[in-house]
């Protein structure tokens, strides 16, 4: 794959998505609630009232009688994973299905690019848009958590890692499912299917992984899933099916 070709295609993708503000707004709406409103509401509760303590050790490995620990080791990681899973799906679906529905892939492959370069540029566009839309929310919440003394600086990478990993995982899974879908509607329906299983994997990993490293373990698990999905998408499914 040539980086110069991917860069040129990325420029095209960003220009196109920038002109489709409705798609961007729709993509940003749910993550706004999950990545910003919900964390802020929990933060307020922690500061003003304190989370009502649950019986000790009802979640394996976490002292949930400490509201701060409960928030940092379970609630925020789960919220950030949910936000990271939701954020890229619509953009990925839009970037790929739109090409199929208007038959413009034929136009694109008539230029000197490979199918792999086209997919790589689309994935980079999704990650760029996701970073632009999601990172400000996450950064604001992390800043507030540190400034208000809920956690130290070590919580920044510990909570950022599962968010970034969830974005990568969601992008790769959406890519596989969107390539398999017939149209925009079926792509959206298929994309809804991976949300619950990945959330179960998230909860399972948080329960099984030991101590404060659990969010990093979760990030590694999600990145592993992303890698497998990406391999399937690029190697076995690919855009070829759109051109057959």
């Amino acid at each position, binding site marked *: 794959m040539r980086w110069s070709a991917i860069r*040129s295609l990325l420029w095209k993708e960003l220009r196109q998505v920038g002109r489709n503000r409705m798609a961007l707004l729709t993509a940003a709406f749910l993550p706004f609630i999950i990545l910003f409103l919900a964390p802020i509401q929990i933060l307020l509760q922690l500061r003003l009232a304190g989370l009502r303590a649950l019986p000790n050790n009802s979640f394996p490995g976490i002292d949930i009688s400490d509201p701060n620990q409960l928030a940092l080791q379970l609630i925020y990681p789960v919220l950030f994973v949910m936000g990271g899973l939701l954020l890229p799906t619509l953009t990925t679906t839009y970037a790929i299905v739109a090409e199929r529905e*208007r038959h*413009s892939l034929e*136009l694109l*492959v*008539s230029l000197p690019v*490979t199918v792999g370069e086209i997919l790589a540029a689309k994935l980079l566009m999704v990650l760029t848009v996701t970073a632009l839309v999601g990172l400000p929310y996450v950064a604001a919440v992390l800043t507030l958590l540190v400034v208000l003394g809920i956690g130290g600086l070590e919580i920044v990478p510990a909570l950022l890692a599962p968010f970034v990993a969830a974005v990568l995982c969601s992008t790769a899974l959406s890519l596989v499912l969107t390539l398999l879908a017939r149209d925009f509607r079926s792509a959206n329906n298929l994309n809804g299917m991976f949300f619950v299983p990945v959330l179960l994997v998230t909860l399972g990993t948080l329960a099984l992984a030991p101590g404060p490293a659990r969010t990093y373990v979760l990030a590694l698990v999600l990145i592993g899933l992303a890698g497998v999905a990406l391999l399937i998408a690029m190697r076995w499914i690919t855009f*070829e099916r759109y051109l*057959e």
Partner: protein
Amino acid sequence: MPGTPAISFEETSKRYRNGTLALSEVSWSIPVGARACLLGPNGSGKTTSIRLLEAALSPTTGWVSLLGTPVGGRGYGDARQRTGVVPQNAGMYSDLTTFEYLDLARRLYGRGDVDRALETFGLAEHRDKRLAQLSGGFQRRVVLAAALLSEPELLLLDEPTVGLDPVAAHEVHEYLASAMRGRTTLLSTHNLAEAEALCDDVVILRKGVVLLHESLASLRQRKKPRARLAARQGVAALIEALRKRNVDAVIEDGGVIASIDPEHEAPELLRSLLTEGIAVYECTPLTASLEDLFLEAVRR
């Protein structure tokens, strides 16, 4: 490299996921400098062949090479940047302008002058229009402009005029005729008039198999020469007179088509007929059209 074909298929097959065999162990090539047309009915494997050359599809078995480089292999990127492609009836972006698309093509080819291309193809006034807003004729001009932007050595044209009205198709033909001059070209079409006007060599595909690969000139030479005759006495009398002289003749479209070499046999034959009192007032040499040759090959 001298002697290296511009395009080559070696025992190439392509089977789609749904089981359709689009190409079945085809082997053919065209040399550098040739202007060849790829003919065949719908579903014969023409577009599949072009997509294999673009590396948009991979062959199931066999090899495909472009400008001496295996498709998808080492050096293919460079060969691909020296090849302009006009796709068949591609969809157009509603969120990219003419200039932006051509600029994307320039970046990907690594060279080219977008403003000059806009001028050459009469697109300057449509520079900032979205591609989907252009008429079919202008959309095809944009695609041609993108394919020719980098002055490629090789042109792959997949049904470049399909779906256009006659005026737009005529305009595109004029651009094509000029673009193909001195340039290796593979034109995939089922428009026989287009192929005849623009190409020298013919590759005929049917059901994924090469039926024929020959130059138009040698195809025509192989076809028995014929002449169309008409006489004042009428078709029946003329046929009888010809048969008396052992000349094969048939009635076609109300006229008599005689199997004779117009240049070498016609003068003697006409003299003989006129002497006998058969008032021949027409003798027109017939050149086999590509349509005749195509139909003959497909029906074989």
